[in-house]
């Protein structure tokens, strides 16, 4: 019963973070701020959902045994690591490409242009 509540907490946090990320993508004014919402909230939401899955798998393994639950948990862990790294790197690539495509950020200060013409 305790693990059930733990799973529910992880899933709820993850889904709330994903929802806020989607709202941020719709609401923020330009590409860079949208990337903030997408990267941080999306990655954190998916990590929390993966942790919920791992908690479920561990509880099943403890009550039931059987290596297939261990395999499921291990692969979920691999998926979590892959998601965390690829999301951050993809966001970096997109922001660099957006700057190279000539989209200027809205904002108070912009220190990048002095190196761009090389």
């Amino acid at each position, binding site marked *: *019963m305790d693990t*059930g509540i733990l*799973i*529910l907490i992880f*899933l709820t946090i*993850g*889904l709330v973070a*994903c*929802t806020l*990320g*989607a*709202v941020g*993508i*719709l609401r923020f004014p330009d*590409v860079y701020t*949208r*990337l903030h919402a*997408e990267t941080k909230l*999306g*990655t954190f*939401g*998916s990590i929390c*959902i*993966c942790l919920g*899955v791992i908690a*479920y*798998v561990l509880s099943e393994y403890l009550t039931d045994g059987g290596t*297939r639950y261990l*395999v*499921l948990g291990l*692969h*979920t862990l*691999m*998926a979590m690591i*892959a*998601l965390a790294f*690829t*999301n951050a*790197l*993809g*966001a970096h*690539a*997109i922001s*660099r*490409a*957006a*700057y*190279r*495509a000539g*989209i200027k950020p809205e904002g108070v200060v912009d220190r990048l242009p002095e190196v761009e013409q090389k």
Partner: protein
Amino acid sequence: MIDPWLPALVVLLTLILVVMFRLLWGPTVPDRVVALDAINTFTVCAILILGVAYHETVLVDVAIVYALLSFVGTLYLAKVVGREI
């Protein structure tokens, strides 16, 4: 206790529909790439949840491969948008 996996799946699919507005409207091309990246992340989560709900380890492997391939796709789109190819 109610099975939490299928409601979570419904929420994720709704989020994918919401983000798809940005994919369709996005004023610039990088906006659409950001929306596509978010949709990829949510899809990986949805596949993971499906794998747990149906007790299929194969679906989790599909999720790993989808995450890595979508990363390659995002990098390629970024190269195209940044005019480096």
